[in-house]
């Protein structure tokens, strides 16, 4: 009976491992180094996006003052032709990189999302165009932070 149980457990574990593999392969599309970086400078290094030029063609729409840091709406539009990706960093958050969006043929370089903010911070957006990086920033003041208990 015990032997059968061990066999069954073993088979179950092997099956589970096999099922997990394709998920791991998918999750490899998550830039762990960049997402686990604790400063904006380190995020940019991990993304290979240091030294980006300031650009007025990246438009960040967000409230100047966010009363609730749990839900801060941020809308980003890149008017730079050929924008391949947009990364959104909240500089003062424990892990600044909040999202990176890649646009293929058929998608406009636009994204709107809600983010958590622990305190007032600059939001930094980095757009990638033909391997070059362009940056825009905007300050959001937070009345009640949204990262604590």
């Amino acid at each position: 009976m015990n032997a059968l149980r061990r066999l069954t457990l073993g088979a179950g574990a092997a099956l589970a491992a096999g099922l997990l593999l394709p998920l791991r392969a998918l999750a490899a599309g998550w830039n762990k180094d960049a997402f686990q970086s604790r400063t904006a400078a380190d995020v940019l290094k991990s993304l290979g996006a240091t030294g980006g030029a300031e650009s007025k063609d990246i438009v960040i729409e967000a409230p100047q003052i966010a009363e609730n840091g749990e839900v801060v709406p941020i809308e980003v539009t890149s008017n730079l032709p050929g924008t391949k990706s947009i990364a959104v960093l909240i500089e003062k958050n424990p892990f600044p990189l909040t999202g990176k969006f890649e646009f293929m043929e058929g998608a406009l370089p636009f994204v709107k999302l809600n983010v958590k903010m622990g305190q007032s911070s600059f939001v930094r957006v980095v757009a990638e165009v033909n391997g070059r990086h362009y940056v825009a920033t905007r300050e959001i003041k937070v009345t009640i932070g949204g990262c604590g208990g």
Partner: protein
Amino acid sequence: MAAGPMKMRASLKGDVADIRVLMTHPMETGQRKDASGNVIPQHFIQNLTVKMNGKTVLEGQISQGVSRNPVFSFRLKGAKAGDKVEVNWLDNNGESNKTETAIA
């Protein structure tokens, strides 16, 4: 709170479709504690994919810094009424979900 259903709306303005998608997900940061002081483990969506008529048009990677029950807006060009839009997500525990709608 467990991950749950999604809602999506896709509306056409000219040849651009406005996609608005809501995902039910706790987006736990790993920094919060429960009533008895135990850390609530990280649980958050990491990957999003948007497909139009089966073709991937947008891929997103996100962090635990996205608000609980995430809502995203995207814009797809060259869209027409009846085109199918699918959005799916995958979280750090390997859970996933997807939803599909026709552009109206």
